[in-house]
């Protein structure tokens, strides 16, 4: 357990210092890393809901989009400061999750689909409620991240720090929840819901709480993206890829681990855009699909556990 504290600490150090120094001046690479981290943030939130809440969601784009729109509209139309608006974006996503709560009674795939339906509904509402959301045209020139303490967060490096912090905080929250009594109850519930109900664990309320947390994180990430890309429209905000890519990333990286989703997101996005796209400009998405298939068949628990296994095997061999 002690070694586990050094390793993450090292990683965090690398992320905050080494990466900007190494590639901070290459706008293009930074854009990719920021996009990968955005996906990673949603992936962490998705995995949290999946592991602690026991619910697989197929419509996290719903929370992402709501967070994006709330934050963008507050800064664009109501003049709110960006960071306050981002938190409000998270809050908006929470309200959206409350609307979806009746679906918590449903089992597995049914819950997944119900959330998907909600994502579609929100997208259509965003198109129709023109007076609030500016309709199908969307929003252009959304304000950028502000300058804080002399450091302009509107730059690529600035944006990188913000999303990195958001994701790491989310992971920390996830880790804390997992080892708390609440987390233990939830994990137990995962295995036998009936038994835990008898013991007195308020399962639905806990699940609802996980949904709220997951939605909040996703909403804040969505709000971040709005201020990073400075553009929003219903199709983009609620696009299926905000649902799909995080799932692929979480599964790929190992959704039962804390770091899995983030690692998965970085690997999938960066390798796809930097490597596959160079070799197969037209068909590189196909490789992604093939990778996913291979991963599920060969190592369903994901990449991180696979690597861990290989590392520990090596260590044992040395002993």
């Amino acid at each position: 357990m002690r070694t586990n504290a050094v390793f993450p600490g090292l990683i965090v150090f690398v992320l905050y210092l080494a990466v900007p120094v190494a590639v901070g001046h290459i706008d293009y690479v930074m854009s990719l890393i920021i996009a990968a981290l955005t996906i990673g943030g949603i992936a962490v939130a998705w995995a949290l809901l999946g592991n602690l809440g026991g619910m697989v969601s197929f419509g996290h784009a719903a929370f992402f989009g709501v967070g994006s729109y709330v934050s963008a509209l507050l800064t664009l139309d109501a003049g709110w400061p960006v960071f306050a608006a981002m938190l409000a974006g998270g809050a908006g996503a929470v309200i959206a999750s409350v609307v979806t709560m009746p679906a918590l009674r449903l089992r597995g795939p049914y819950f997944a689909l119900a959330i998907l339906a909600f994502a579609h509904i929100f997208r259509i509402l965003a198109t129709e409620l023109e007076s609030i959301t500016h309709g199908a045209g969307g929003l252009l020139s959304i304000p950028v991240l502000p300058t804080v303490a002399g450091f302009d967060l509107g730059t690529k490096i600035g944006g990188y720090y913000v999303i990195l912090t958001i994701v790491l905080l989310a992971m920390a929250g996830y880790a804390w929840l997992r080892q708390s009594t609440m987390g233990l109850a939830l994990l137990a519930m995962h295995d036998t819901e009936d038994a835990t109900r008898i013991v007195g664990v308020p399962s639905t309320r806990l699940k609802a709480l996980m949904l709220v947390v997951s939605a909040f994180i996703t909403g804040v990430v969505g709000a971040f993206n709005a201020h990073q890309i400075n553009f929003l429209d219903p199709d983009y905000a609620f696009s299926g890829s905000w649902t799909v890519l995080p799932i692929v990333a979480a599964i790929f990286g190992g959704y039962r681990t804390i770091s899995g989703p983030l690692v998965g997101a970085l690997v999938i996005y960066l390798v796809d855009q930097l490597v596959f796209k160079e070799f197969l400009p037209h068909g590189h998405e196909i490789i992604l699909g093939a990778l996913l298939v291979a991963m599920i068949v060969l190592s369903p628990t994901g990449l991180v556990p696979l690597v861990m296994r290989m590392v520990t095997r090596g260590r044992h061999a040395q002993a």
Partner: protein
Amino acid sequence: MKNKLRTLALAGAIALAGLVGAHAEETILLGSHLPLTGKLARVGTGMHEGIAVAVDMFNRQNEGKYKVELVTIDDETNPAKAVAAVEKLAGEGVVALTGGYGSNIIGPASEAANKAGLVYITSGGVAPELSKRGHKGFFRINNTEGYSKAMMGLLKDMGVKKVSILYNNKEATTDLAKTVEKDLSDQGIEVVLHAFDGATSDFKPLVNKVKLQDKSDAIGMVGYENDYVGILKAGTVLKPDVKAMVGVWSLATSKMNEEFHDLVQTVYGTSMLPYPAEFTSPEAKEFADTYQKLFGKEPDYLGQFGYVQTKLLLEAIVRAQQAGTLATGGLAEELRGTDANTLIGRVKFDENGDNPFFSHRMGQHQGDKVVLVWPEDAATGKMIFPATPWSQ
């Protein structure tokens, strides 16, 4: 004797050096980002072909003087990837950018170009806001007004009194439909608007509603290829009693004529050139030939736009290079000074980068051809009116 020989040799050497110097070719790096995969793959590829033709023709015309190297990145119909593509191209040192399709992608992408100080020219985004951001380097050769002028002009000439417009509820199509509605109402023509969801596959309920309730003289369609096919199929079954079916982009094309021949007979759509293309000017002939040589097919409107925007850009680049202002931001000035007669008509940019002279033309599918029927000075034939595919 020796002195004369030496002078001759020296003169020869200088002449040779002069010749070599004059033949030093300058390479111009041109960047382009387009949706080559994803939802807009079809239109992105079409535009890319036009851009490639422009580059090919330019290189041949300027052989020995300038050589353009085109770098194209697929933005996968994704705004974030388009921004990344622009940044990558800026990092590689491109001189300017041509391309982009979809106002929702062009918006962020051109912002990135603006931040990098690069000129950005496009024909794929007609949203009004795009030219209202104060970007000095943003240019586009077409806009919503131009499409609306054509549709309205045709309907006016037809003398219809009431039009039902069916439009896809996406941004570009909604914009155009509303602009057309305003323009037509100003002319005293009654307009009924019907928005439909892009995922609609069965248009019968909608067309039936129009047939039984609206009782219009003509039906306007503002959408994409699959929308037109769906509406026309519904029309074939319901046979509404109207005098004309009028669409906008992607309809009066050779592809629609070949693949959906019977379905599109007598249907109107916007088109710059007739089909088979009767290219009269030498430039147009060469354009068509190069297109055929490179891609083995006839150019369509996307290729035409891609070609014109890139040709104008390259000409401005050469002018700026010769004036020595290319590296110091003089390209935008040169481009703004453009006043040219091109394949798509007159192009002149205003201070927002818009081309106020852009006015499309209307073509009609007549048999195996697409005949230009509006405006009169560009027409290659007369319109068959009143007529619909089901009244034949």
